[in-house]
């Protein structure tokens, strides 16, 4: 995501990551991968549950809430414009595919 952040920015899209990790863990992660986008801590998994992406008992020995990998594009009025849900948690939507779909949505929205 970081490599494509400028392209998302050019489309007026803010990238925001969410996981059940702590603020400190996310700070370490952001430093290690050079992430300039926000990484939010959903410590009790309430937001995951609200979005229907919680994955209970996903990883042995990990007590933090875990989400299925999922991406939502949220627009005006908090409406969900698109979503990308994988059926395989190893495989996530690629930034290039996300950008192409967002460009198409922007193009449709501007007509």
């Amino acid at each position: 995501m970081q490599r494509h952040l400028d392209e998302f920015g050019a489309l007026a899209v803010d990238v925001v990551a969410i996981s059940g990790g702590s603020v400190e863990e996310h700070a370490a992660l952001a430093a290690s991968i050079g992430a300039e986008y926000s990484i939010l801590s959903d410590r009790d998994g309430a937001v995951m549950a609200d979005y229907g992406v919680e994955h209970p008992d996903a990883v042995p020995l990990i007590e933090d809430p875990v989400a299925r990998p999922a991406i939502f594009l949220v627009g005006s009025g908090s409406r969900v414009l698109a979503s990308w849900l994988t059926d395989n948690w190893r495989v996530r939507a690629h930034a290039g595919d996300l950008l192409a779909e967002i460009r198409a949505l922007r193009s449709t929205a501007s007509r």
Partner: protein
Amino acid sequence: MNASPSAEAKDGARTTARPLFAMAFAGAAIAFGAFVSYFVIVPRWEGLRDSGHLNVALAALGALLSGFALVRAFRARSARVVSFVLAGVAVASLALLAGYIYVLSYELPPASNALAVGGIAPAFRLEDSNGTERSLGELLARGAAGASTPPRWVLLVFFRGPW
């Protein structure tokens, strides 16, 4: 002086054992290397990581090689224990990797649970990695003042965890 029959048998066993050991070791090394590299090196290439087929194929090749060495070792009654152990390493590497890629990775709650396109994204207020609270409303409102700019959109990326 001629070597005794038992010494000749030992020499013969050593001569047979070396290539069998080499074959079994190569098979185990290939399979174990395919397993480890999938987690350590392959993530740099999205295509290879996503499919995982190359690593599974390499692990299968390693398992076949060490399995072949094991059969030969039992037929030749030579290097049987070490071939057995190395074949075990190769088969375990293959089984773990294939299980991870083709079974475990698909264990997910149904996608139908997730918020649908067209629905309203629930509001939230969460701390970012600097400890600053961020809300969805605030993120969407950024840049709203500029009438010439398109409305801000937010791409919410849920990921499994920072571990």
